């Protein structure tokens, strides 16, 4: 447990030192969402209908941007080799890195999303469910993203590659979250979808650390 918190602190400290990284991810999120009304037209009814989808797609793309650096910077300066030799399980290390990544990427997105929802004319009921789906699913994005990041260490064009590999696997989150917000806007019961999102998170929590650890061991061979 102590090792886990040390790892999280280390990642947070490194992210703090390179704070422009966090800032650029959030700015990309905002920019991507702002582009849609400019392209689709400012009619508020249209925007309200597509708002959940836009915010979720932009969140996914913004998360993809930050993922390729998850393990690459450690691989570059040799820390990855040290982590592989550490006495704690590699899976714990992966979860710690995912946790730090979520705090650095997912949390800012969650904090900024309500403002963007207002920009897209999303009413309060929809906003609340939007935040709920983001809170449950951004950790899943970090977990699945860690698998993609671990697989693409040392690959050419790693950033785009992570997106190419992981976005198809993230489509259930997108579908269920956008659907949940749509149901909430109409006043129907959205809790089954939230439960499914939670189940998806738990499945990823169990599978992804092991797959990412296997990929890290493969990358170090």
């Amino acid at each position, binding site marked *: 447990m102590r090792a886990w918190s040390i790892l999280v602190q280390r990642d947070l400290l490194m992210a703090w030192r390179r704070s422009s990284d966090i800032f650029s991810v959030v700015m990309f999120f905002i920019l991507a969402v702002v582009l849609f009304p400019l392209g689709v037209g400012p009619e508020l009814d249209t925007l309200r209908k597509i708002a959940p989808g836009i915010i979720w797609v932009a969140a996914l793309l913004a998360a993809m941007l930050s993922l390729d650096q998850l393990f690459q910077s450690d691989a570059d300066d040799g820390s990855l080799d040290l982590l592989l030799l550490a006495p704690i399980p590699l899976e714990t290390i992966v979860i710690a890195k995912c946790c730090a990544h979520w705090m650095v990427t997912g949390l800012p997105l969650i904090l900024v999303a309500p403002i963007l929802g207002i920009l897209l004319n999303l009413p309060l009921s929809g906003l609340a469910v939007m935040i709920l789906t983001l809170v449950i699913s951004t950790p899943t994005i970090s977990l699945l993203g860690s698998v993609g990041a671990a697989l693409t260490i040392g690959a050419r064009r790693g950033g785009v590659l992570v997106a*190419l590999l992981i*976005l198809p696997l993230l489509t259930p989150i997108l579908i269920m979250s956008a659907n949940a917000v749509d149901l909430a806007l109409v006043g129907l019961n959205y809790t089954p979808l939230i439960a*499914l999102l939670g189940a998806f998170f738990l499945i990823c929590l169990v*599978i992804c650390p092991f797959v990412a650890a296997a*990929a890290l061991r493969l990358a170090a061979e």
Partner: protein
Amino acid sequence: MINLHRYANPNQFMRLSSPLVPVAGLLTCLLFPIGLYLALFVSPPDYEQRETVRIMYVHVPAAWMALLSYTLMAVFSAVALIWRHPLANVMARSVAPIGASFTLICLITGSLWGQPTWGTWWVWDARLTSVLILFFLFVGYLVLYGAFDDVAKGARAAGLIAIVGFIFVPIIKFSVDLLDLRTLHQGASVSKLSSPAIHESMMWPLMVMAAAYLCYLITFLLLGVRTEIMAARVRAGQRMRAEKGIQRGNSE
């Protein structure tokens, strides 16, 4: 448990597959004309769709083969990762473009079928979206395989993503099912557990076409692996010549 490692030797594989390739190729060349004749001329027109139903004989086997290809790719990748079977990665890499082509054929023929029958080229219902995502999974595998300077590393990474994708495909299919409550695409008519809900005058051409597609898959899978083994031999020969050239240069 069969000792698969007996077939790990590339020379052994070449010896075993060299009679298989012409047999499978011949079967493909026989089954396709028979299947197409049965499908286009012998089978009856649909009472609703009339002649356009004949696209089914190209579209449905392509869908079956696409799913089979992905399963084979995942199984070969698992064999490569667990037992370190040297040829399993090559086999997975050879299945991938064939599977991607079948998926693309399924999507395009389905689109062509949808226009006269549903009035639209595309609709975002469960089946179409899942097959589209399957296509992206194939493409992702191929891109990851070639993204590394060290081919062995690329093979291992791609193997992992094939297995992860295989685990997630049922989840994706299930969640996409939630998307559209009123699906446009027909449900499954041929099930292994019950008697098929399709008349035998349509089932036999379908089965013959499916067998033709399967022989095509086997032929090109074996050809792909044989080509890769031969290419590896050529690369090894080129490397040996280059080393000999360097040695001669050093001794002069």
